[in-house]
Protein backbone atom coordinates (compact mmCIF):
# COMPACT_ATOMS: atom_id res chain seq x y z
CA UNK A 1 0.00 0.00 0.00
CA UNK A 2 1.31 3.46 -0.79
CA UNK A 3 1.42 6.02 2.00
CA UNK A 4 -1.47 7.76 0.33
CA UNK A 5 -3.61 4.65 0.23
CA UNK A 6 -2.70 3.99 3.82
CA UNK A 7 -3.85 7.46 4.78
CA UNK A 8 -7.07 7.44 2.83
CA UNK A 9 -8.25 3.91 3.49
CA UNK A 10 -11.74 2.99 2.47
CA UNK A 11 -12.91 2.97 6.08
CA UNK A 12 -11.59 6.50 6.56
CA UNK A 13 -13.35 7.73 3.44
CA UNK A 14 -16.53 5.98 4.48
CA UNK A 15 -16.50 7.90 7.78
CA UNK A 16 -15.93 11.11 5.81
CA UNK A 17 -18.91 10.47 3.59
CA UNK A 18 -21.18 9.29 6.39
CA UNK A 19 -19.86 10.64 9.68
CA UNK A 20 -21.30 8.92 12.77
CA UNK A 21 -22.98 10.91 15.53
CA UNK A 22 -22.98 13.92 13.25
CA UNK A 23 -25.80 15.83 14.91
CA UNK A 24 -26.62 18.42 17.48
CA UNK A 25 -26.89 16.58 20.76
CA UNK A 26 -29.75 17.70 22.99
CA UNK A 27 -29.11 17.95 26.71
CA UNK A 28 -25.34 18.06 26.46
CA UNK A 29 -23.45 18.57 29.70
CA UNK A 30 -20.10 19.37 28.12
CA UNK A 31 -19.14 21.04 24.89
CA UNK A 32 -16.18 22.59 23.14
CA UNK A 33 -15.34 23.99 19.76
CA UNK A 34 -12.18 23.14 17.92
CA UNK A 35 -10.88 25.39 15.19
CA UNK A 36 -7.86 25.17 12.94
CA UNK A 37 -7.17 28.65 11.61
CA UNK A 38 -4.64 27.26 9.14
CA UNK A 39 -7.25 25.44 7.06
CA UNK A 40 -10.53 26.70 8.51
CA UNK A 41 -11.63 23.29 9.77
CA UNK A 42 -13.94 23.51 12.72
CA UNK A 43 -15.73 21.05 14.92
CA UNK A 44 -18.23 21.52 17.72
CA UNK A 45 -18.31 18.61 20.10
CA UNK A 46 -21.19 17.95 22.49
CA UNK A 47 -21.08 15.38 25.27
CA UNK A 48 -23.59 14.02 27.71
CA UNK A 49 -21.65 12.85 30.75
CA UNK A 50 -23.50 11.16 33.58
CA UNK A 51 -21.89 9.52 36.58
CA UNK A 52 -18.48 9.89 35.05
CA UNK A 53 -19.52 8.06 31.89
CA UNK A 54 -19.82 9.51 28.37
CA UNK A 55 -23.43 8.51 27.75
CA UNK A 56 -23.83 10.22 24.42
CA UNK A 57 -21.87 12.35 22.00
CA UNK A 58 -22.51 14.40 18.89
CA UNK A 59 -20.45 16.63 16.67
CA UNK A 60 -20.96 19.19 13.96
CA UNK A 61 -18.74 21.28 11.76
CA UNK A 62 -16.86 21.11 8.52
CA UNK A 63 -13.45 19.90 7.63
CA UNK A 64 -11.22 17.75 5.49
CA UNK A 65 -11.46 13.97 5.17
CA UNK A 66 -8.95 13.41 7.94
CA UNK A 67 -10.53 15.71 10.52
CA UNK A 68 -14.07 14.55 9.75
CA UNK A 69 -13.29 10.85 9.85
CA UNK A 70 -11.19 11.22 12.97
CA UNK A 71 -14.03 13.05 14.73
CA UNK A 72 -16.51 10.43 13.58
CA UNK A 73 -14.37 7.53 14.78
CA UNK A 74 -13.63 9.30 18.02
CA UNK A 75 -17.31 9.63 18.85
CA UNK A 76 -17.73 5.91 18.34
CA UNK A 77 -14.64 5.21 20.42
CA UNK A 78 -15.64 7.22 23.47
CA UNK A 79 -19.34 6.50 23.69
CA UNK A 80 -20.02 4.46 26.81
CA UNK A 81 -16.50 4.96 28.13
CA UNK A 82 -15.68 6.59 31.44
CA UNK A 83 -14.15 10.05 31.34
CA UNK A 84 -10.90 8.52 32.49
CA UNK A 85 -10.96 5.95 29.68
CA UNK A 86 -11.74 8.64 27.14
CA UNK A 87 -8.75 10.60 28.32
CA UNK A 88 -6.53 7.54 28.04
CA UNK A 89 -7.80 7.10 24.52
CA UNK A 90 -6.87 10.69 23.74
CA UNK A 91 -3.33 10.09 24.97
CA UNK A 92 -3.01 6.88 22.99
CA UNK A 93 -4.41 8.44 19.82
CA UNK A 94 -2.20 11.48 20.13
CA UNK A 95 0.80 9.20 20.66
CA UNK A 96 -0.09 7.18 17.56
CA UNK A 97 -0.41 10.07 15.12
CA UNK A 98 2.62 11.95 16.42
CA UNK A 99 4.96 8.99 16.76
CA UNK A 100 8.33 8.69 15.10
CA UNK A 101 8.49 6.45 12.09
CA UNK A 102 8.34 2.80 13.12
CA UNK A 103 7.59 3.53 16.79
CA UNK A 104 5.02 1.49 18.64
CA UNK A 105 1.63 2.60 19.82
CA UNK A 106 -1.12 1.08 21.93
CA UNK A 107 -2.99 -0.71 19.16
CA UNK A 108 -5.02 -2.77 21.58
CA UNK A 109 -6.45 0.22 23.38
CA UNK A 110 -7.07 2.12 20.14
CA UNK A 111 -8.98 -0.65 18.37
CA UNK A 112 -10.59 0.64 15.17
CA UNK A 113 -8.85 3.98 15.54
CA UNK A 114 -5.67 2.27 14.43
CA UNK A 115 -6.88 2.84 10.88
CA UNK A 116 -5.68 6.44 11.24
CA UNK A 117 -2.12 5.42 12.13
CA UNK A 118 -1.01 6.40 8.60
CA UNK A 119 -1.41 10.05 9.60
CA UNK A 120 1.93 9.92 11.36
CA UNK A 121 3.58 9.78 7.92
CA UNK A 122 1.98 13.14 7.08
CA UNK A 123 3.19 15.64 9.67
CA UNK A 124 1.18 18.43 8.02
CA UNK A 125 -2.01 16.51 8.66
CA UNK A 126 -1.56 15.65 12.34
CA UNK A 127 -3.49 18.74 13.35
CA UNK A 128 -6.42 17.65 11.20
CA UNK A 129 -6.52 14.27 12.91
CA UNK A 130 -6.29 15.69 16.42
CA UNK A 131 -8.72 18.59 16.05
CA UNK A 132 -11.76 16.79 17.47
CA UNK A 133 -9.61 15.16 20.12
CA UNK A 134 -8.41 18.50 21.39
CA UNK A 135 -12.03 19.59 21.51
CA UNK A 136 -12.76 16.45 23.54
CA UNK A 137 -9.99 17.28 25.95
CA UNK A 138 -11.29 20.83 26.31
CA UNK A 139 -14.88 19.67 26.80
CA UNK A 140 -13.91 17.18 29.48
CA UNK A 141 -11.77 19.63 31.37
CA UNK A 142 -14.61 22.11 31.20
CA UNK A 143 -12.94 24.74 29.10
CA UNK A 144 -15.85 26.14 27.16
CA UNK A 145 -13.82 28.37 24.87
CA UNK A 146 -12.87 27.38 21.38
CA UNK A 147 -9.65 25.45 21.26
CA UNK A 148 -7.28 25.96 18.45
CA UNK A 149 -4.76 23.53 17.05
CA UNK A 150 -2.51 26.27 15.75
Amino acid sequence: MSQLQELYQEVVLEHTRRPRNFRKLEGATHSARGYNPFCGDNVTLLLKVEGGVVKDVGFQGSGCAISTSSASMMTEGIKGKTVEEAQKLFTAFHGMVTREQGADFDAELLGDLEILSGVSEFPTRVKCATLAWHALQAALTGRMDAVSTE
Partner: protein
Amino acid sequence: MSSVNGKAIQRATPKVTQAFDPSQVRDDFPILKQVVNGKPLVYLDNAATSQKPQAVLDTLLRYYTTENANIHRGVHTLSALATEDYEGARAKVRRFLNAKEDREIVFVRGTTEGINLVASSYGRRFIGPGDEVIITAMEHHSNIVPWQMLCEEKGATLRVIPMNDDGELLMDEYDKLLSKRTKLVSVVYVSNSLGTINPVREIITKAHSVGAPVLLDGAQSTPHMAVDVQALDCDFYAFSGHKLYGPTGVGVLYGKAALLDAMPPYQGGGDMIKSVTFAKTIYNDLPYKFEAGTPNIAGGIGLGTAVDYVTGIGLERIAAHEDELLVYGTKRLAEIEGLRLIGTAKHKTGILSFTLKDIHPHDIGTVLDQEGIAIRTGHHCTQPVMERFGIPATARASLGMYNTKAEIDALVLGLDKALEVFS
Protein backbone atom coordinates in the same frame (compact mmCIF):
# COMPACT_ATOMS: atom_id res chain seq x y z
CA MET B 1 34.97 36.81 -6.92
CA SER B 2 36.46 37.04 -3.45
CA SER B 3 38.39 40.27 -3.82
CA VAL B 4 36.93 42.98 -1.65
CA ASN B 5 38.14 46.13 -3.26
CA GLY B 6 38.01 44.90 -6.79
CA LYS B 7 34.50 43.81 -5.82
CA ALA B 8 33.31 41.46 -8.51
CA ILE B 9 29.57 41.60 -8.34
CA GLN B 10 27.86 38.66 -9.93
CA ARG B 11 25.68 40.22 -12.57
CA ALA B 12 22.20 38.88 -12.77
CA THR B 13 21.96 38.42 -16.50
CA PRO B 14 19.63 35.57 -17.29
CA LYS B 15 20.30 34.01 -20.67
CA VAL B 16 16.90 34.24 -22.28
CA THR B 17 16.41 34.72 -25.95
CA GLN B 18 13.56 36.64 -27.51
CA ALA B 19 10.75 34.10 -27.43
CA PHE B 20 10.24 33.22 -23.82
CA ASP B 21 11.20 29.66 -23.09
CA PRO B 22 10.89 28.80 -19.39
CA SER B 23 13.54 26.11 -19.68
CA GLN B 24 16.04 28.92 -20.13
CA VAL B 25 15.25 30.40 -16.74
CA ARG B 26 14.62 27.10 -14.95
CA ASP B 27 18.35 26.40 -14.90
CA ASP B 28 18.83 29.56 -12.87
CA PHE B 29 16.71 28.18 -10.01
CA PRO B 30 18.58 25.36 -8.26
CA ILE B 31 15.60 24.33 -6.12
CA LEU B 32 13.63 23.35 -9.22
CA LYS B 33 15.93 20.35 -9.56
CA GLN B 34 14.68 19.01 -6.23
CA VAL B 35 12.93 15.69 -6.03
CA VAL B 36 9.98 15.72 -3.62
CA ASN B 37 8.35 12.49 -2.50
CA GLY B 38 10.21 10.73 -5.28
CA LYS B 39 8.87 13.06 -7.98
CA PRO B 40 10.42 16.09 -9.65
CA LEU B 41 9.24 19.21 -7.85
CA VAL B 42 6.37 21.02 -9.56
CA TYR B 43 6.28 24.32 -7.75
CA LEU B 44 2.91 26.04 -8.14
CA ASP B 45 2.83 28.06 -4.94
CA ASN B 46 4.41 31.24 -6.23
CA ALA B 47 1.80 33.54 -4.76
CA ALA B 48 2.87 32.38 -1.30
CA THR B 49 6.54 32.80 -2.09
CA SER B 50 8.65 32.42 -5.18
CA GLN B 51 11.88 30.49 -5.58
CA LYS B 52 15.24 32.26 -5.77
CA PRO B 53 17.60 32.33 -8.72
CA GLN B 54 21.26 31.46 -8.23
CA ALA B 55 22.22 35.12 -8.68
CA VAL B 56 20.26 36.05 -5.54
CA LEU B 57 21.75 33.15 -3.59
CA ASP B 58 25.22 34.18 -4.74
CA THR B 59 24.61 37.74 -3.62
CA LEU B 60 23.66 36.63 -0.12
CA LEU B 61 26.73 34.42 0.12
CA ARG B 62 29.01 37.09 -1.30
CA TYR B 63 27.68 39.68 1.09
CA TYR B 64 28.21 37.53 4.14
CA THR B 65 31.58 36.18 3.03
CA THR B 66 33.18 39.37 1.78
CA GLU B 67 31.56 42.51 3.11
CA ASN B 68 29.32 41.87 6.10
CA ALA B 69 29.30 45.01 8.26
CA ASN B 70 26.77 47.38 9.71
CA ILE B 71 25.78 50.20 7.44
CA HIS B 72 25.56 53.99 7.64
CA ARG B 73 27.89 54.41 10.58
CA GLY B 74 31.23 52.79 9.96
CA VAL B 75 34.45 54.40 8.85
CA HIS B 76 35.91 51.07 7.89
CA THR B 77 36.04 49.64 4.39
CA LEU B 78 33.52 46.86 4.80
CA SER B 79 30.96 49.17 6.29
CA ALA B 80 31.40 51.51 3.36
CA LEU B 81 30.99 48.63 0.90
CA ALA B 82 27.89 47.30 2.63
CA THR B 83 26.38 50.78 2.73
CA GLU B 84 27.13 51.32 -0.93
CA ASP B 85 25.49 48.04 -1.91
CA TYR B 86 22.49 48.56 0.33
CA GLU B 87 21.90 52.05 -1.00
CA GLY B 88 22.60 50.73 -4.49
CA ALA B 89 19.73 48.28 -4.01
CA ARG B 90 17.47 51.16 -3.03
CA ALA B 91 18.36 52.91 -6.27
CA LYS B 92 17.59 49.73 -8.23
CA VAL B 93 14.18 49.49 -6.61
CA ARG B 94 13.58 53.18 -7.34
CA ARG B 95 14.28 52.61 -11.03
CA PHE B 96 12.26 49.40 -11.01
CA LEU B 97 9.14 51.19 -9.71
CA ASN B 98 10.00 54.35 -11.60
CA ALA B 99 9.80 56.43 -8.44
CA LYS B 100 11.13 59.95 -8.62
CA GLU B 101 13.67 59.78 -5.85
CA ASP B 102 15.60 57.19 -3.88
CA ARG B 103 14.32 58.68 -0.62
CA GLU B 104 10.81 57.61 -1.56
CA ILE B 105 11.89 53.97 -1.20
CA VAL B 106 11.63 52.73 2.38
CA PHE B 107 12.94 49.26 3.14
CA VAL B 108 10.59 47.28 5.36
CA ARG B 109 10.09 43.61 6.20
CA GLY B 110 7.46 43.08 3.54
CA THR B 111 4.05 44.14 2.33
CA THR B 112 2.53 43.62 5.76
CA GLU B 113 4.96 45.96 7.43
CA GLY B 114 4.60 48.50 4.63
CA ILE B 115 0.84 48.67 5.15
CA ASN B 116 1.22 48.79 8.92
CA LEU B 117 3.68 51.63 8.56
CA VAL B 118 1.17 53.70 6.63
CA ALA B 119 -1.68 52.82 9.00
CA SER B 120 0.38 53.65 12.10
CA SER B 121 2.08 56.75 10.84
CA TYR B 122 -0.12 58.36 8.21
CA GLY B 123 -3.30 56.89 9.66
CA ARG B 124 -2.71 57.94 13.23
CA ARG B 125 -1.81 61.46 12.23
CA PHE B 126 -4.35 62.17 9.52
CA ILE B 127 -7.37 59.99 10.22
CA GLY B 128 -9.81 60.85 12.97
CA PRO B 129 -13.36 60.34 14.26
CA GLY B 130 -15.97 60.18 11.52
CA ASP B 131 -13.39 59.67 8.77
CA GLU B 132 -13.53 56.71 6.43
CA VAL B 133 -11.02 54.29 4.97
CA ILE B 134 -11.98 52.31 1.87
CA ILE B 135 -10.67 48.84 1.07
CA THR B 136 -12.03 46.07 -1.18
CA ALA B 137 -13.79 42.77 -0.61
CA MET B 138 -10.74 40.87 -1.85
CA GLU B 139 -8.06 42.15 0.51
CA HIS B 140 -5.44 39.98 2.13
CA HIS B 141 -5.78 40.08 5.92
CA SER B 142 -2.73 42.33 5.98
CA ASN B 143 -4.74 45.04 4.23
CA ILE B 144 -7.77 44.61 6.49
CA VAL B 145 -6.57 44.24 10.05
CA PRO B 146 -4.27 47.31 10.25
CA TRP B 147 -7.19 49.48 9.10
CA GLN B 148 -9.61 47.86 11.52
CA MET B 149 -7.16 48.55 14.32
CA LEU B 150 -6.78 52.14 13.21
CA CYS B 151 -10.52 52.70 12.80
CA GLU B 152 -11.21 51.26 16.21
CA GLU B 153 -8.61 53.46 17.81
CA LYS B 154 -9.73 56.61 16.03
CA GLY B 155 -13.49 56.15 15.77
CA ALA B 156 -13.20 56.01 11.99
CA THR B 157 -15.15 53.67 9.71
CA LEU B 158 -13.93 51.01 7.32
CA ARG B 159 -15.82 50.78 4.01
CA VAL B 160 -15.56 47.86 1.62
CA ILE B 161 -15.95 47.88 -2.18
CA PRO B 162 -17.95 44.74 -3.02
CA MET B 163 -17.30 42.43 -5.97
CA ASN B 164 -19.30 40.31 -8.40
CA ASP B 165 -19.30 36.53 -8.79
CA ASP B 166 -16.31 36.66 -11.13
CA GLY B 167 -14.29 38.44 -8.48
CA GLU B 168 -14.40 41.88 -10.12
CA LEU B 169 -14.93 45.05 -8.12
CA LEU B 170 -18.27 46.81 -8.45
CA MET B 171 -16.98 50.22 -9.42
CA ASP B 172 -20.43 51.82 -9.19
CA GLU B 173 -20.45 50.89 -5.53
CA TYR B 174 -17.02 52.44 -5.15
CA ASP B 175 -18.36 55.70 -6.55
CA LYS B 176 -21.08 55.65 -3.91
CA LEU B 177 -18.62 55.02 -1.09
CA LEU B 178 -16.40 57.95 -1.98
CA SER B 179 -17.09 61.18 -0.15
CA LYS B 180 -15.31 63.98 1.60
CA ARG B 181 -15.15 61.68 4.63
CA THR B 182 -12.87 59.33 2.65
CA LYS B 183 -9.38 59.86 4.05
CA LEU B 184 -7.56 56.93 2.52
CA VAL B 185 -8.18 54.21 -0.06
CA SER B 186 -6.11 51.04 0.29
CA VAL B 187 -6.60 48.37 -2.36
CA VAL B 188 -4.94 45.25 -3.56
CA TYR B 189 -3.61 45.66 -7.11
CA VAL B 190 -3.80 41.92 -7.84
CA SER B 191 -5.78 39.56 -5.62
CA ASN B 192 -3.78 36.65 -4.21
CA SER B 193 -6.77 34.33 -3.93
CA LEU B 194 -8.63 35.26 -7.15
CA GLY B 195 -5.95 36.63 -9.45
CA THR B 196 -8.09 39.66 -10.32
CA ILE B 197 -6.19 42.68 -11.61
CA ASN B 198 -8.07 45.64 -10.21
CA PRO B 199 -8.62 48.87 -12.19
CA VAL B 200 -6.30 50.81 -9.94
CA ARG B 201 -5.79 53.75 -12.31
CA GLU B 202 -9.48 54.51 -12.14
CA ILE B 203 -9.60 53.87 -8.39
CA ILE B 204 -6.75 56.32 -7.86
CA THR B 205 -8.17 59.08 -10.06
CA LYS B 206 -11.50 58.89 -8.28
CA ALA B 207 -9.94 58.84 -4.82
CA HIS B 208 -7.85 61.87 -5.69
CA SER B 209 -10.96 63.70 -6.81
CA VAL B 210 -12.13 63.63 -3.19
CA GLY B 211 -8.64 64.33 -1.91
CA ALA B 212 -7.90 60.86 -0.57
CA PRO B 213 -4.48 59.26 -1.07
CA VAL B 214 -4.25 55.67 -2.29
CA LEU B 215 -2.11 52.81 -1.03
CA LEU B 216 -1.66 49.88 -3.38
CA ASP B 217 -0.92 46.43 -2.00
CA GLY B 218 1.55 45.36 -4.66
CA ALA B 219 2.42 41.94 -3.20
CA GLN B 220 1.03 40.07 -6.21
CA SER B 221 1.34 42.68 -8.94
CA THR B 222 5.06 43.38 -8.59
CA PRO B 223 6.28 39.93 -9.68
CA HIS B 224 3.92 39.70 -12.64
CA MET B 225 3.58 43.07 -14.35
CA ALA B 226 5.61 46.19 -14.91
CA VAL B 227 4.71 48.84 -12.35
CA ASP B 228 5.27 52.57 -12.74
CA VAL B 229 4.25 54.38 -9.58
CA GLN B 230 4.37 57.78 -11.26
CA ALA B 231 2.16 56.70 -14.15
CA LEU B 232 -0.25 55.10 -11.68
CA ASP B 233 -0.01 58.20 -9.51
CA CYS B 234 -0.47 56.04 -6.40
CA ASP B 235 0.56 57.65 -3.14
CA PHE B 236 1.91 54.52 -1.48
CA TYR B 237 2.90 51.16 -2.90
CA ALA B 238 3.99 48.15 -0.84
CA PHE B 239 5.51 44.87 -1.95
CA SER B 240 7.46 41.89 -0.62
CA GLY B 241 10.88 40.85 -1.90
CA HIS B 242 10.26 37.15 -1.37
CA LYS B 243 7.46 37.02 -3.92
CA LEU B 244 9.70 38.75 -6.46
CA TYR B 245 12.31 35.98 -6.51
CA GLY B 246 14.21 37.77 -3.74
CA PRO B 247 15.00 36.89 -0.12
CA THR B 248 12.48 36.73 2.71
CA GLY B 249 12.37 39.40 5.37
CA VAL B 250 12.70 42.40 3.10
CA GLY B 251 10.19 44.47 1.20
CA VAL B 252 9.52 47.99 0.11
CA LEU B 253 7.18 50.79 0.90
CA TYR B 254 7.13 53.48 -1.75
CA GLY B 255 5.59 56.77 -0.73
CA LYS B 256 5.44 60.17 -2.39
CA ALA B 257 8.09 62.28 -0.73
CA ALA B 258 5.68 65.03 0.29
CA LEU B 259 3.48 62.54 2.11
CA LEU B 260 6.35 60.67 3.75
CA ASP B 261 7.82 63.98 4.87
CA ALA B 262 4.59 64.97 6.57
CA MET B 263 4.33 61.68 8.43
CA PRO B 264 5.71 60.99 11.90
CA PRO B 265 8.24 58.17 12.36
CA TYR B 266 6.92 54.65 12.65
CA GLN B 267 9.43 53.23 15.10
CA GLY B 268 12.06 54.96 17.20
CA GLY B 269 15.66 53.92 17.54
CA GLY B 270 19.05 54.13 15.90
CA ASP B 271 19.48 55.28 12.30
CA MET B 272 16.21 57.20 12.26
CA ILE B 273 17.60 60.17 14.15
CA LYS B 274 19.88 63.11 13.49
CA SER B 275 20.53 63.91 17.12
CA VAL B 276 19.24 62.71 20.43
CA THR B 277 19.23 64.48 23.76
CA PHE B 278 16.93 63.69 26.62
CA ALA B 279 15.16 66.94 25.92
CA LYS B 280 14.60 66.50 22.20
CA THR B 281 15.30 64.21 19.30
CA ILE B 282 15.66 65.43 15.76
CA TYR B 283 14.53 62.88 13.23
CA ASN B 284 16.57 61.86 10.27
CA ASP B 285 15.69 62.63 6.67
CA LEU B 286 13.79 60.31 4.37
CA PRO B 287 13.89 57.41 4.04
CA TYR B 288 15.94 56.82 7.21
CA LYS B 289 13.25 58.40 9.37
CA PHE B 290 11.30 55.20 8.75
CA GLU B 291 14.19 52.76 9.05
CA ALA B 292 14.92 52.46 12.75
CA GLY B 293 17.50 49.91 13.78
CA THR B 294 19.80 47.67 11.76
CA PRO B 295 17.85 46.60 8.69
CA ASN B 296 17.97 43.36 6.74
CA ILE B 297 21.13 44.41 4.92
CA ALA B 298 21.80 41.15 3.08
CA GLY B 299 18.12 40.92 2.20
CA GLY B 300 18.04 44.42 0.77
CA ILE B 301 21.09 43.79 -1.37
CA GLY B 302 19.64 40.43 -2.41
CA LEU B 303 16.41 42.15 -3.39
CA GLY B 304 18.47 44.46 -5.58
CA THR B 305 19.83 41.41 -7.39
CA ALA B 306 16.32 39.97 -7.75
CA VAL B 307 15.22 43.25 -9.33
CA ASP B 308 18.17 43.04 -11.73
CA TYR B 309 17.26 39.48 -12.55
CA VAL B 310 13.61 40.19 -13.26
CA THR B 311 14.45 43.33 -15.20
CA GLY B 312 16.99 41.39 -17.22
CA ILE B 313 14.25 39.10 -18.46
CA GLY B 314 11.65 41.86 -18.68
CA LEU B 315 8.35 41.91 -16.87
CA GLU B 316 6.44 42.25 -20.14
CA ARG B 317 7.86 38.95 -21.29
CA ILE B 318 7.28 37.30 -17.93
CA ALA B 319 3.67 38.52 -17.99
CA ALA B 320 3.17 37.28 -21.54
CA HIS B 321 4.50 33.85 -20.63
CA GLU B 322 2.39 33.61 -17.48
CA ASP B 323 -0.68 34.75 -19.40
CA GLU B 324 -0.20 32.00 -21.93
CA LEU B 325 0.11 29.48 -19.10
CA LEU B 326 -2.96 30.91 -17.41
CA VAL B 327 -5.03 30.47 -20.56
CA TYR B 328 -3.73 26.95 -20.96
CA GLY B 329 -4.28 26.09 -17.28
CA THR B 330 -7.79 27.54 -17.27
CA LYS B 331 -8.66 25.42 -20.30
CA ARG B 332 -7.16 22.24 -18.85
CA LEU B 333 -8.83 22.68 -15.47
CA ALA B 334 -12.18 23.37 -17.13
CA GLU B 335 -11.97 19.89 -18.63
CA ILE B 336 -12.09 18.32 -15.17
CA GLU B 337 -15.59 17.40 -14.16
CA GLY B 338 -16.70 18.92 -10.87
CA LEU B 339 -13.97 21.53 -10.82
CA ARG B 340 -15.13 25.04 -9.98
CA LEU B 341 -12.78 27.90 -10.68
CA ILE B 342 -12.97 30.66 -8.07
CA GLY B 343 -11.90 33.95 -9.60
CA THR B 344 -12.87 34.33 -13.23
CA ALA B 345 -12.22 38.02 -13.78
CA LYS B 346 -11.58 39.21 -17.29
CA HIS B 347 -8.27 40.72 -16.23
CA LYS B 348 -6.29 38.37 -14.07
CA THR B 349 -2.83 37.02 -13.42
CA GLY B 350 -1.68 33.42 -13.16
CA ILE B 351 -3.71 32.35 -10.17
CA LEU B 352 -5.91 29.28 -10.45
CA SER B 353 -8.05 28.96 -7.34
CA PHE B 354 -10.55 26.14 -7.36
CA THR B 355 -12.67 23.60 -5.56
CA LEU B 356 -13.10 20.04 -6.79
CA LYS B 357 -16.40 18.30 -6.11
CA ASP B 358 -16.75 17.96 -2.36
CA ILE B 359 -13.13 17.00 -1.84
CA HIS B 360 -11.66 19.24 0.80
CA PRO B 361 -8.80 21.37 -0.59
CA HIS B 362 -6.55 20.15 2.18
CA ASP B 363 -6.96 16.57 0.99
CA ILE B 364 -6.30 17.66 -2.60
CA GLY B 365 -3.11 19.30 -1.36
CA THR B 366 -1.92 16.09 0.27
CA VAL B 367 -2.59 13.98 -2.82
CA LEU B 368 -0.74 16.48 -5.03
CA ASP B 369 2.14 16.69 -2.58
CA GLN B 370 2.64 12.95 -2.97
CA GLU B 371 3.12 13.70 -6.68
CA GLY B 372 5.72 16.34 -5.91
CA ILE B 373 3.27 19.13 -6.73
CA ALA B 374 3.26 22.10 -4.36
CA ILE B 375 0.06 24.13 -4.25
CA ARG B 376 -1.55 26.06 -1.45
CA THR B 377 -4.82 25.11 0.18
CA GLY B 378 -6.90 27.07 2.64
CA HIS B 379 -8.28 30.57 2.79
CA HIS B 380 -5.05 32.24 1.62
CA CYS B 381 -5.38 34.90 4.33
CA THR B 382 -8.52 36.15 2.60
CA GLN B 383 -11.31 34.75 4.75
CA PRO B 384 -13.85 37.36 3.58
CA VAL B 385 -13.28 36.17 -0.01
CA MET B 386 -14.05 32.58 1.01
CA GLU B 387 -17.18 33.79 2.75
CA ARG B 388 -18.19 35.78 -0.33
CA PHE B 389 -18.05 32.61 -2.42
CA GLY B 390 -19.60 30.46 0.29
CA ILE B 391 -16.70 28.05 0.60
CA PRO B 392 -14.34 27.29 3.49
CA ALA B 393 -11.22 27.08 1.38
CA THR B 394 -9.80 26.64 -2.09
CA ALA B 395 -6.91 24.82 -3.66
CA ARG B 396 -4.70 27.34 -5.44
CA ALA B 397 -2.09 26.86 -8.10
CA SER B 398 -0.17 30.10 -8.67
CA LEU B 399 2.24 30.57 -11.52
CA GLY B 400 5.70 32.00 -11.78
CA MET B 401 8.06 32.72 -14.64
CA TYR B 402 9.63 29.25 -14.55
CA ASN B 403 6.44 27.23 -14.78
CA THR B 404 5.67 25.21 -17.88
CA LYS B 405 2.74 23.66 -19.69
CA ALA B 406 4.09 20.26 -18.71
CA GLU B 407 3.68 21.29 -15.07
CA ILE B 408 0.05 22.24 -15.71
CA ASP B 409 -0.38 18.80 -17.24
CA ALA B 410 1.16 17.26 -14.11
CA LEU B 411 -1.32 19.22 -12.01
CA VAL B 412 -4.22 17.91 -14.06
CA LEU B 413 -2.95 14.34 -13.68
CA GLY B 414 -2.60 14.91 -9.94
CA LEU B 415 -6.18 16.11 -9.75
CA ASP B 416 -7.32 13.03 -11.65
CA LYS B 417 -5.56 11.04 -8.97
CA ALA B 418 -7.38 12.96 -6.24
CA LEU B 419 -10.66 12.18 -7.97
CA GLU B 420 -9.68 8.54 -8.04
CA VAL B 421 -8.77 8.42 -4.34
CA PHE B 422 -12.00 10.16 -3.33
CA SER B 423 -14.27 8.58 -5.91
